[in-house]
């Protein structure tokens, strides 16, 4: 796969506090790469260092496909986390300005703007002023602004924050279709469920440090153990007799058993003791969301992984 962006050994400190510690990853053409982490983990700082809005103390950011110094701004689309647009100007004017800043031909931009407005359910809004749009509509216009010039690399910082579910779906579809057309996409988010659905690879960051880096499949294989949710009134002592269980969370009638890494679910189910009361039973993998919470709160529900995170 063709690498578009390579980040190598980023270090950054604010005053005495080191906010990025040796961050390295790559973003390839035609994939969605997600940076995940709790608030304040260093996601936006990493992105700002890539965009040249901040400069790292150490480390390099390389844009492949780009000769010469600096950042190929015209080939990058960027949707910052802190975003807004001029209030008292028309949608078309502001989008054309953004396209012009990227040196994208204006006649082509105009056509694309109209297409996108239609796609995003904003048809006929091109001559409406930004201040008359709802917040969600404004977000859509900002998104159009980020992709209007057909960027090769698209960087989206928390693209779903503040969006209603319908708009989230529209954004997800559009991001996927951009990926399928070969755009390299770097996406940061703390909304795990959305990311789990769409990302190809992920980079999890906590307190400025890498926690997990790899493809979604590998990460799930490696970190997302099976867990078994049992509904039924059981004594904790009874549950503790079940083998290959690392941790038990019990809340009234519902107990969640976190299984060991190498467990074989078929065999494990067969040897469940007879005295366990089961009204409902579900077995599935720990979700990205739970891995994330686990890391963010340092709860170390999955004890083995906890050691890796620490």
């Amino acid at each position, binding site marked *: 796969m063709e690498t578009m962006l390579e980040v190598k050994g980023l270090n950054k400190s604010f005053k005495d506090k080191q906010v990025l510690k040796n961050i390295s990853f790559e973003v390839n053409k035609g994939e969605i790469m997600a940076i995940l982490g709790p608030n304040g983990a260093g996601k936006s700082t990493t992105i700002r260092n890539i965009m040249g*809005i901040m400069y790292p103390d150490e480390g390099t950011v390389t844009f492949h496909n780009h000769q010469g110094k600096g950042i190929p*701004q015209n080939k990058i689309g960027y949707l910052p986390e*802190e*975003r*807004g647009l001029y*209030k008292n100007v028309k949608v078309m004017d502001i989008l054309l*300005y953004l396209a012009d800043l990227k040196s994208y031909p204006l006649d082509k931009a105009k056509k694309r703007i109209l297409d996108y407005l239609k796609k995003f359910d904003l048809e006929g809004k091109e001559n409406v002023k930004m201040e008359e749009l709802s917040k969600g509509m404004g977000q859509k216009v*900002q998104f159009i602004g*980020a992709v209007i010039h057909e960027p090769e690399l698209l960087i989206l910082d928390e693209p779903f924050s503040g969006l209603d579910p319908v708009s989230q779906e529209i954004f997800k579809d559009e991001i996927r279709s951009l990926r399928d057309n070969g755009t390299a996409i770097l996406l940061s988010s703390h909304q795990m469920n959305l990311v789990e659905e769409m990302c190809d690879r992920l980079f999890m960051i906590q307190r400025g440090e890498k926690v997990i880096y790899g493809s979604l499949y590998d990460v799930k294989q490696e970190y997302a153990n099976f867990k078994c949710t049992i509904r039924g009134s059981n004594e904790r002592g009874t549950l503790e007799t079940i083998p290959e269980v690392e941790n038990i969370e019990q809340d009234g009638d519902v107990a969640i058993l976190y299984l060991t890494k190498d467990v074989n679910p078929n065999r494990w189910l067969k040897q469940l003791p007879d005295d366990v009361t089961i009204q409902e039973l579900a077995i599935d993998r720990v979700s990205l969301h739970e891995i994330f919470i686990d890391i963010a709160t340092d709860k170390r529900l999955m004890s083995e992984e906890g050691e890796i995170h620490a």
Partner: protein
Amino acid sequence: MRNAMKVAKWEIKRNMKNKTFLIGLFLTPLLIVGFGLIGSWIGGSSDDGSYEDEMTVFINDEIGIIDELTQYASESGLEWSIEETNVEIGDVAAELDGAEDTAYIFLNEAALNEGVVPVYIAEDVDPFFSSQLAMFQGPILAHQMEALGLTEEQSLAVSRGIQFAEMDAEEMTNDEALEDEASGEDFLAGIVPAAFGGIIFISILFTGMAMFQSASQEKKDKIAEIILSSVTPEELMQGKIIGYFVLGLVQAAVLLVFLVPMILFLTDVPLFEYLFVTETLLFVLLAVLNYLMFAAIFVGIGATIEDVTTSGNFQGIVMMLPFLPFIFIGPVVGDPSGLMAQIGTYIPFTAPGVLLLRLTMLDVWPWLEISISLVIIIVSVLVFIRLAGKIFKVGILMYGKNATPGEIWKWLKA
């Protein structure tokens, strides 16, 4: 630079489509022209004096010059009705009782000999009356000398008296110019280029202040980061400075479109003849430099303020800097070559304004001072643009709070 021009173009376009800006654009000249017309209307009628009632001057003339005095008064434009009277000094009190705008003058041999002419005036008489009366000194003296048998030349020599005039040694070279009768026209010729420079000065200064608003708003609306993904902070700042400069020129142009016809209509000043002189160039240069200096300061400070209502004193003080030259207006008008005027010429914030004012008033330009001042201004402009760039770069991306002076100082040192 190409990106800076794009930003500039956008700022111009955005403002030209903005109702608030357009209203301001046309309201400013309308106000100025409006006040001008009202002023000339009031000024025109005030020629008659605010004490519009006609003054009646009774003269008990025993020496026979009442005709000369009447003629003299009307030539001087005084609206006095001069009448001869036989009222004696003893009866004046009764005559004046309840009278308004009335005066009694007693001209007789005794008065001439003593050199004191008794004048009795009613209450409520124009306070300027006694000074206007002094004008009668001339004809009365002339009459006296004629009576003494002096020739016309002799009487002229005596009546001229001796005066002490203070001369400025530095302006000695200009004495010839002073002797020109046409000094009134000279004054206008000096004022017109300066006024032209002044209009540009004020216009672009005000749009420069609008730039503060623009930078602060951009920070508040969180636009900056989107824009900065396409241009560098320096380009964004330059673009803003250029853009608002053009907007200022537009404001000046609109102002002149209203003002020039008014001046041509109200006066017979040969405006264009006075305008197209080299002095105008210097005044315009001063206006531009002044703009650049304050534009840099405003764009830098604007980037540190997200919410004007909670901004600290520091920013408030900086916002007042462009008005600093006003402190110097009094002293400079009083003495355009004085110490205060010179100090003002060498302080970066006041130099352009004070220089503009001084050059309007001085007949001979102190080229050495002008050169030093220009160097100070140009160096300050370069320094301020550089410092503003540093502040702008960090400040515009600091969301959610205003920067403290401490933080700004840290960015400057970085």
